[in-house]
């Protein structure tokens, strides 16, 4: 409640008004005081002049009474005497001020005058002619002296006032200057207080509007607004912070949802692709089933013919070829035991040895323990060897070597196919290692290799290093397949 806008405005307004009213009141009091001072300067003078007038008023009735013995003159005389007597102050303090001393003297002289007047009236009543005539002379002297003393004190007062006048004017001007400056400062003070209050309210508003602008720009990581303004503004800031958090949370939720949808879409596209691939494979398989069976039967016939004709090497060649065909035809699954893959490779090796007895050296390095322990994607090693045999040694003379090794580096099964051929150009490697849907426009020269690579990517979509090609010009090529044994392939048939 204390910090509310209403309370603050009320407080500052009250403070400002009090200060301004105080200043103006002070100015008023000062002015009145100065006026009173000015008045007081003439009060004594006025009083003395009144006394003088009373004294003067007494002269005529006195003369009239003494000359005519008139009762009306006497009553008038007595009335003025009474008035005069009550006018003369009884308190007559002694001070060292000259004017005060003369005034005191005047009051005593007035007492003497009134006493003598009474005496004259008594003498007149007693018909003491000689005495009242003498007393009259004396009282006239006293009257003149009193007048001269009043004039003297007036003169002194006038001189003093004249001396004081400049000082009084200086004082008055200085007081006025201070008072005006006081009012100006009080007004400025009140105005600055008001501006401070307004600023206390508007400044947080500007801050809030700036924050709102940032929020509208999608910047939700801005820190919370903490204001020390009036309660109302502080509440707005808190509400703003809550709103910011809520919007942030809501947008995060929306983003998550969107990501999930994208994931689902991706998954769906992949499934569609896979479906397409499967259908295509199925089609290929169906197409291929015709010729391989025919070829297989033909090769078997050739094997029997070679045995009958006692052509042992031909028979061995044909037998290996038939074994390789049988493996190819038989393995319709995506994954096969490593033993089957190696057996297929050995058949292929035997064929190659017969084909290239002098120019090709083949090596196989596989630990027997691994053969039954792990599976591997079907038909991956033979195409790689075939790729090396077909392309690695074309422009290279001499004897080429192709080495296949399989090793296990827990938990990764590493299949390496290495040759010491001419190597593969970098751009081809880059293109090959880019995951993509099979493109039949690609050179048929690398089709087997591409097939293996894309299949690996397909089966292990989250394992980017599932296949790698290390090659350099004239220093051969090594193709590495890394099968993470703890990671399940995306499809397993």
């Amino acid at each position, binding site marked *: 409640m204390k910090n509310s806008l209403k309370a603050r405005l009320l407080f500052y307004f009250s403070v400002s008004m009090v200060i301004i009213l105080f*200043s103006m009141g002070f100015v008023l009091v000062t002015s009145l005081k100065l006026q009173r001072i000015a008045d007081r300067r003439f009060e004594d003078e006025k009083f003395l002049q009144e006394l003088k007038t009373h004294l003067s008023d007494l002269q005529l009735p006195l003369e009239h009474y003494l000359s005519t013995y008139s009762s009306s003159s006497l009553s008038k005389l007595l009335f003025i005497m009474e008035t005069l007597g009550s006018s003369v102050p009884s308190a007559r303090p*002694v001070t060292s001020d000259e004017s*005060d001393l003369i005034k005191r003297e005047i009051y*005593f002289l007035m007492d003497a005058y009134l006493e003598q007047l009474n005496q004259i009236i008594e003498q007149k009543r007693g018909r003491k002619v000689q005495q009242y005539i003498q007393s009259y002379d004396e009282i006239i*002297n006293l009257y003149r002296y009193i007048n001269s003393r009043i004039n003297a004190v007036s003169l002194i007062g006038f001189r003093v006032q004249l001396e004081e006048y400049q000082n009084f004017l200086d004082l008055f001007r200085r007081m006025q200057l201070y008072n005006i400056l006081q009012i100006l400062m*009080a007004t400025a003070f009140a105005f600055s207080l008001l501006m*401070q209050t307004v600023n206390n309210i508007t*400044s947080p508003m500007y801050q809030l509007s700036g924050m709102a602008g940032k929020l509208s720009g999608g910047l939700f990581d801005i820190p919370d607004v903490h204001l020390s303004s009036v309660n109302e503004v502080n509440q707005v800031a808190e509400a703003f912070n809550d709103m910011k958090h809520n919007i942030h949370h809501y947008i995060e939720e929306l983003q998550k949802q969107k990501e999930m949808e994208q994931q689902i879409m991706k998954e769906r596209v992949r499934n569609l692709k896979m479906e397409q691939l499967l259908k295509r494979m199925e089609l290929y398989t169906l197409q291929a089933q015709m010729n391989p069976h025919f070829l297989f039967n033909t090769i078997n016939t050739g094997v029997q013919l070679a045995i009958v004709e006692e052509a042992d090497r031909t028979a061995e060649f044909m037998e290996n070829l038939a074994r390789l065909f049988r493996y190819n035809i038989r393995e319709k699954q995506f994954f096969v035991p490593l033993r089957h893959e190696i057996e297929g490779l050995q058949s292929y090796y035997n064929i190659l040895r017969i084909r290239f007895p002098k120019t090709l050296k083949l090596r196989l390095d596989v630990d027997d323990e691994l053969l039954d322990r792990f599976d591997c994607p079907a038909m991956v090693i033979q195409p790689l060897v075939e790729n090396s045999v077909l392309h690695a040694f074309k422009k290279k003379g001499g004897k080429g070597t192709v080495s296949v090794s399989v090793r296990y580096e827990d938990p990764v099964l590493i299949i390496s196919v290495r040759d010491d051929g001419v190597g593969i150009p970098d751009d081809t490697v880059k293109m090959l290692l880019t995951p993509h849907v099979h493109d039949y426009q690609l050179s048929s020269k690398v089709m087997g290799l591409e097939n293996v690579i894309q299949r690996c990517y397909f089966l292990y979509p989250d394992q980017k290093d599932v296949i790698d090609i290390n090659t350099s010009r004239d220093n051969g090529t090594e193709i590495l397949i890394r099968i993470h044994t703890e990671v399940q392939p995306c499809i397993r048939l």
Partner: protein
Amino acid sequence: MNNFLKFLSFFFGAVFSIFLFLSISLMIRNPFISGNNNEGASVKKYNYAFFLPKADASFIRSLRQGAADAAKSLDCAVSFHPIDSDPLSFEMACFSGFDGFGLYLYEDDKKKLQQLSEILKKGIPVVQIENEVTQSPGSFFIGTNNFDVGKGIARLALETGRKKINMVLVYSKKNPGVITDGRLIEMGIKSVMGERLSVLRTEETSLNPLDAEILVHDLLNEESSIDIIVLTDYNDTLVTVQSIIDMNLVGVVNIIGFGDHETIKSYIDKGVILGSIVRNPYRIGFSTVMALKEISENGYTSAYVDTGITILSGRMQ
């Protein structure tokens, strides 16, 4: 922005307070407002009136100063009135409510004496300054014993070593108190000088400060046997000295001056003036107020106070 406004508020508030403080302090300090313009406004117990010659002589000024200082230190008020130029003032004195009088009467004026007796009749204490014109209960004297003044003059005169001395004693209206008691001075001179005083002639100067010059010229022109001129006023002393110098009679005619002004002292040092009689008017004024207050409070004081004289001479240097 907010800090700037806070600074502004503080600044204006501070300046406002300064002007408020200045206003209030001006009001408090200013005698018009605080009522302190009347320095002597504090209430005193007694009010004494001094009736003095109007002559603006240093003697009277010093006497007034002594009385005023005594009034300040003894917490009473004094007022000064002319005794010669405004007879009505003295005439009305007994009606004026004064608690005591210091009177410097120097003439045998019947009216003044009558007025004095009126005052004494009313039981108001009176101190007669320098000249005791009347002796009555309630009247007291404070001043210099003029007989002693005469003796002092004579001693100075004897220092000249002259066997027979022709002396001129010049009174002055500028110092009227001496005129009244002139006889006492003359007696004092005669009592000390005896037969060595050949002639004692008396003269009087007016209030004109240059009157002594004419007098000295006339005296020395008409009578060349004058040995010593005695002055009873400071102004007359200075004028006479100048005349003697002008007439080239320094050392031929000796001067006995009056007062302790620095110029007179320097003339004494140079040997132009034989010596100077110094009374103490300040002490006279001060003692008068003291005596009046004592009478007001206790009803009595010493009936006779001699404030003494001092003789300045070359021998004393």
